[in-house]
């Protein structure tokens, strides 16, 4: 199991390091979202403080969708899905490897985006930085847990790239709400984030488990 996870993980990260396709697409797109927010809303620093958490997560979510689409589109080219189906290991291992790879690639984009966000919107992110990073990790795990599962489904449909966000975004509503509220606290808002952190943890545990258990059905022919 461990070997399956690490092998898949390394394979995906190596491909990503060589091509940088998922990263560049999701990074540029997320950046664009932030810039467009700035144009369309023309915020003062105070307003940006209030809404920054929301912008940040919209940018992450949209960028994440692109990265997740890439994750199994990669396997579809050259018929690699068939290869995955033939490996004699537990399907859950393949899922975890994929999910961790997606989480890492999304996190890298997010962490690079963060200082740019701080500069664009004039927001101090250093005040509760460890907290902010924790929220980032928990939220991203939640997003990519269901995202990896749905990405594996979406490659087999006719409207591949379109179907992923349509399926994923409503299911990740709790993650988005919780992550935005917890991020607002991390950016200096005067609220109690403990409920949201717990919700994120619960969501992550539930959906990693459910996806882990059901992934075999998706990969099977």
């Amino acid at each position, binding site marked *: 199991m461990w070997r399956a996870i690490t092998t898949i993980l390394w394979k995906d990260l190596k491909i990503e390091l060589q091509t940088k396709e998922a990263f560049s697409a999701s990074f540029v797109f997320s950046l664009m979202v932030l810039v467009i927010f700035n144009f369309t809303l023309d915020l003062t620093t105070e307003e940006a403080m209030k809404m920054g958490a929301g912008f940040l997560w919209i940018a992450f979510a949209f960028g994440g969708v692109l990265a997740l689409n890439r994750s199994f589109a990669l396997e579809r080219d050259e018929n690699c899905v068939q290869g995955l189906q033939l490996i004699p290991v537990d399907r859950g291992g393949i899922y975890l490897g994929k999910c961790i790879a997606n989480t890492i690639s999304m996190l890298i984009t997010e962490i690079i985006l963060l200082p740019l966000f701080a500069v664009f919107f004039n927001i101090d992110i250093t005040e509760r930085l460890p907290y902010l990073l924790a929220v980032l990790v928990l939220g991203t795990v939640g997003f990519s847990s*269901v995202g990896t*599962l*749905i990405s594996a*489904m979406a490659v*087999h*449909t*006719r*409207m591949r790239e379109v*179907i992923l966000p*349509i*399926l994923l*975004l*409503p*299911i990740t*509503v*709790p993650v988005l*709400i*919780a992550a935005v*509220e917890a991020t607002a606290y991390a950016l200096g808002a005067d*609220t109690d984030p403990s*409920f*949201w952190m717990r*919700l994120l943890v*619960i*969501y992550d545990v*539930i*959906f990693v488990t*459910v*996806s882990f258990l*059901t992934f075999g*059905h*998706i990969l*099977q022919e």
Partner: protein
Amino acid sequence: MARDRCGVLLVGLTLVSMIASLYMTFLWAPTERTMGDVQRIFYFHVPSAWVAFFAFLLVFVFSLAYLVRRNKRWDNISAASAEIGVLFCTLVLITGPIWAKPAWGVWWTWDARLTLTLVLWLIYVAYLMLRHYMPDPERRATFSAVLGVVGFIDVPLVYFSIRWWRTQHPQPVMSGGESSGLEPPMLATLLVCLGTFTLLFFALLRIRLRLQRLREEADEIQDRLEQTA
């Protein structure tokens, strides 16, 4: 295919029950004091919501059953149930604002129940889209079963997150929640309407499943014709 006696009986029963519900809703139930006649939409709104939630529960149950047993019938029931659920969920989202405008003064408010209904609608519309865009029937059944399970497990999480989110963002106070003590005749009308909508759900489900069976038979006949030709 033999005539579906049970189905005819079910549809007949639904029709009778519908007439009774219409009579009770519009003529028999007393007019609400503060909201007036518009409150009568309540007798359609609440049962629609009940049927929608019930239908989504069935999607979950039969999706799980499909994943365990791989019986094509369970997949058909999930699909039919999801379609009917989306239909009634749409009715909830239409009757809700019609009632909210005169009662609360706004068409829409991001209150926990309303928002949950909207998110549910989105999840199950996505479910139907997934089915629609999946050409291979076997895969369609498996994938949508997985989504049926994942989507339903998500419901309590969506509900709690929205409820907490609401308590942190102040909202205009709304008066006259529907649970503020129902008069016995109103309660009776509501119960009869709940029964009618449930019957209607099963009648629609039966018709939908029959349609599916006929479609499969027709496909089979066509296949055979092509083979002999």
